[in-house]
């Protein structure tokens, strides 16, 4: 009865009331439906982003494991191909002493064996230093990087120099090691791929941030190339750099210098006390 009276055309207030109420209800239902659909869309998008992040982390982890295996294989090869035969030869020389009783020949064999053992000791020392440079542990990042660059310059392949402007206080040992590995990886890439004639490293501090910049005049990559390589299956070293930087909550930028003649790599790391737990 009430509904029929509401719908009576003579009753203007009734019409306003009826349509107003229906309109408000329709708006309310429309709003709720919109909110539900919008939220489903947002949640689906967030889940996709999460999945992409998971895939990226999986890729970085795989790259890290592959690199570790490659390094182990290299060490194994160095020991097997170089140290092994040297020690075997030294043993041969020493064995000869049991057979040959002539004193001069014996002395000569012992001398030869000693030379070979000295070479083997040097080889093992080199392998050990490449695994964990003692300069880094004892004297810090600046000395280790200086050492590395001096060795590169000494080899004659290119002119390598570095300058630390503000490194009065050493970072934590683990942090120095990670940064050193990143610099090693970048320098190896430059040596292998860029055909550069010089490489220069500078270190600065600005506020709570620690900066390392590497300039070279060879073929380099830009930030776009870096991101593409990171997403692909190649670029193992770059993925390793990325995963190490993630631990330090750091960033890396690849770009061409303003003068368009040099390539520049900038590493930005937040100092330990400012890093979130």
């Amino acid at each position, binding site marked *: 009865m009430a509904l029929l*009276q509401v719908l009576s055309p003579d009753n203007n207030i009734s019409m306003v009331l009826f349509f*107003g109420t229906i309109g408000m209800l329709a*708006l309310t239902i429309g709003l709720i439906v919109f909110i539900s659909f919008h*939220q489903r869309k947002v949640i689906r998008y*967030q*889940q996709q982003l999460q999945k992409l992040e998971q895939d990226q982390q999986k890729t970085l*982890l795989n790259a890290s494991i592959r690199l570790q295996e490659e390094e182990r294989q290299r060490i194994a090869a160095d020991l097997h191909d170089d140290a092994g035969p040297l020690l075997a030869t030294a043993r041969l020389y020493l064995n000869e002493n049991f057979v040959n009783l002539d004193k001069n020949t014996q002395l000569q064999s012992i001398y030869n064996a000693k030379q070979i053992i000295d070479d083997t000791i040097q080889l093992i020392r080199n392998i050990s230093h490449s695994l964990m440079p003692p300069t880094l542990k004892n004297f810090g990042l600046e000395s280790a990087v200086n050492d590395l660059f001096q060795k590169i310059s000494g080899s004659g392949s290119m002119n390598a120099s570095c300058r630390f402007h503000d490194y009065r206080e050493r970072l934590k040992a683990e942090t120095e090691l990670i940064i050193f590995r990143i610099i090693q990886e970048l320098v190896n890439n430059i040596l292998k791929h860029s055909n550069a004639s010089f490489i220069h490293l500078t270190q600065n501090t600005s506020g709570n941030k620690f900066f390392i910049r590497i300039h070279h005049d060879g073929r380099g990559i830009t930030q776009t190339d870096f991101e593409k390589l990171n997403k692909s299956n190649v670029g193992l070293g770059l993925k390793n750099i990325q995963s190490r930087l993630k631990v330090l909550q750091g960033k890396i930028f690849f770009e061409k210098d303003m003068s368009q003649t040099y390539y520049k790599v900038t590493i930005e790391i937040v100092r330990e006390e400012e890093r979130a737990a």
Partner: protein
Amino acid sequence: MKLIKYIAISYLFCITCFLVSCLKNPKKALWLIFIYILCALFFDFFHEIESKEKNILNGIFTICEFAVFAYFFYLIIDIPFAKKIIPISSIVILAVLITTFIRADKKSFDSFSASLESVVVIIFCLIYFFGQISKPQTYFIYTVPYFWIVLGILIYMSSTLFLFILAGSLSQQELQKYWVITTISNIISNIIFGIGFLMNRFTIHHSISDQSSNHNDILKSP
């Protein structure tokens, strides 16, 4: 009389849902709504039996209802800006409602207070929904009990808004005739409140930030 039966059933459903779902896991905001439902039941009962002082009862109920809803929204909305605005605006509106009630003619329905309350509560509901859709979360909004409570409030307020606005232009008999809109929206909102109370029992939430922190543990060392 049939509607009285249905409204009584809706109140019973609502109260039962609360007792079943919320006693073990009490939340302040849900307790507030439960108290509001009991007050609404009390006022509806007296509204039916007492015909002379209906307008006084309506006026008091409007003030109490607004105070409860304002506090409820203050508890559940977590937008920092709104957390400051809601108490200030609520105090102002309450002062207006009380002043209007004291000065109003008790012989007719106080249309201004009721419509003002409806508009402000609808705005609070919209602020709540805005806050929910702008928050990053991985659970659906309708799994949250407060969504249903706010939906019930919104449906009740939006259905009765036009009635309250036009109440001043209607005679007592006409108002009595159209009061069925309030009754029906009351029944619907009670059912929705009941669903909201039941959601409190059957829902587990987790935020997107909790999930992503697990993935950061994958790469701890180079």
